């Protein structure tokens, strides 16, 4: 009887270990970068930061119909190349003291079905999650290009995605005197590397 219980517990532990998700961590710096581009009538500029952090967790057998993604961007670190413009962006528009981060949480994998991550083979997933910015959250669907590699004995997930962000959707102020200088729709591009934990 005791032996049966022990073998059952052992089988349970093995099963649980096999079902544990693979976790990959995104750390600031390195190849991780967020770039936004504003193209207005009289001015075009872009802002960048490498202060991006988070994690990606997926089932070991492959990306199922969902994957746990959490990505945060430190908005106060965005740099447009002009100090005064950075200050105006932080204070007047993004209000980074109240809303310091942009966050993506999710995600439901909309396609392709039952895709697997094979080393060296790029795959494009369509995912959906929740994007939060300036205290407002919206559902976000985007295509993400993903590639699994191994480096230094650890697996890495390289990812890249682009999506538009409308300032008005996130209650970000854009006074009329800035209409010609600041676009309502910002083109955002996120690239990064998540390293196996």
């Amino acid at each position, binding site marked *: 009887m005791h032996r049966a219980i022990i073998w059952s517990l052992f089988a349970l532990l093995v099963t649980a270990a096999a079902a544990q998700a693979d976790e990959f961590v995104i750390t600031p710096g390195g190849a991780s970068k967020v770039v936004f581009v504003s*193209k207005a009538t*009289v*001015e075009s500029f872009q802002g960048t930061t490498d202060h991006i952090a988070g994690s990606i967790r997926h089932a070991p057998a492959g990306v199922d119909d969902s994957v746990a993604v959490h990505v945060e961007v430190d908005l106060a670190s965005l740099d447009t*190349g002009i100090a*005064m413009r950075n200050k105006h962006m932080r204070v007047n528009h993004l209000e980074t003291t109240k809303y310091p981060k942009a966050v993506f949480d999710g995600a439901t994998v909309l396609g392709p079905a039952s895709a697997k991550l094979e080393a060296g083979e790029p795959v494009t997933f369509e995912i959906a999650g929740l994007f939060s910015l300036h205290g407002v959250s919206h559902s976000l669907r985007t295509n993400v290009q993903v590639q699994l590699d191994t480096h230094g004995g650890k697996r890495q997930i390289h990812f890249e995605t682009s999506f538009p962000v409308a300032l008005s959707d996130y209650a970000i102020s854009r006074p009329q*005197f*800035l209409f*010609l200088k600041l676009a309502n729709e910002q083109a955002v591009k996120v690239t990064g590397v998540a390293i196996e934990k």
Partner: protein
Amino acid sequence: MRSKTKQGIIAIVAAAMGLSGVLAFRADAVPRYSARYGQRCGLCHVNPSGAGMRTTYASQQLVPEELAWGHGRDSLSLPSPQLSPNVTIGADFRELYVGSTQRANNLDFFLMQGDLYLVFQLDPKTTLYFNRGMSNSYELFGTAYVLPLTGYLKAGRFVPSYGWKFDDHTMYVRSELDLAPPLSSDVGIEIGLQPGPLDVQISMVNGSRGSTLDTDNSLAQSLNAIFRHELAGIGVGIGVTGYHQRGPRAILDVSGGYGYLTWHGLSWLAEADFARTSPRPGPRTTALVTSHELSYAVRQGLEFFGTYDFYDPDRCVKSGAKSRWGGGVRVMPTPYLALDASYRRANTVAGPAISGGDFDETVLQLHLFY
């Protein structure tokens, strides 16, 4: 300072420079702000090459929040310059109180500038701009941001873009080159491109400055280009500029370099130009002119400045030369009022092309603007 110049008395430099006091020489742009903040002139001025009417971004945000001593928003509701969603007005008014050792009885009030601006936003990319000053000259042009690289096309009567548009019209690169408003407004077209840190303007105009017609049947061209960058916390701008006019009596070629260095509140702006005049017939002359401005913003709304100018009308012969150095203080207590007090010392090496002697001058300036 000589005994004849009383403390605090301001001298009209225009008269001291031998120019008529009747004309109102518009003093327009403030390039040191462009340098200090690393931003193109077109962000603060409706005219993308700088000077003239300020954008609502400048009048409603930049000046109150970054330049004026008094914020203006809490204690005073700033008037809106917009007559309607598509029509905006602006104004510049400058009066001087002048004193100079070059003239006797030289306590003068001088209305130096009185400009009214009107802008029609015809659509999101197209504006019609009108500027009428106290002199007979004016600017009237349309601008369309329809070119790539945030580029624009301008057509009408305007001042061709050349070098720095210093607000002080007596700086030698303005007064000696005759390429400054209002007399140098001309009719033609201008293309501007703004790829990243580079800002380029190319103009094709009649070459008949001050006239609406091409009086000599020959066009003139101008080029103005500046590259801005920040290096180890120091703002750097390097520019080249040129103006070419092939007239029936002479060929005029003006070319030079200009730029800035800025670090925290300290800014140095400089421009140096060669002006080659080849008369038909006659020997060619090559003039050298340079102007410098060093300013320091002690705090928001208060800055000290120093200037230096040099002019040699002909580098090839000893025809005389003049130089000038000076300094002063500038206060902007509110977003629509600026007060200047300055002193300058002019030195002259007399020659066939330069007359007069050394003199001192002091200037008080009241500037109302919006």
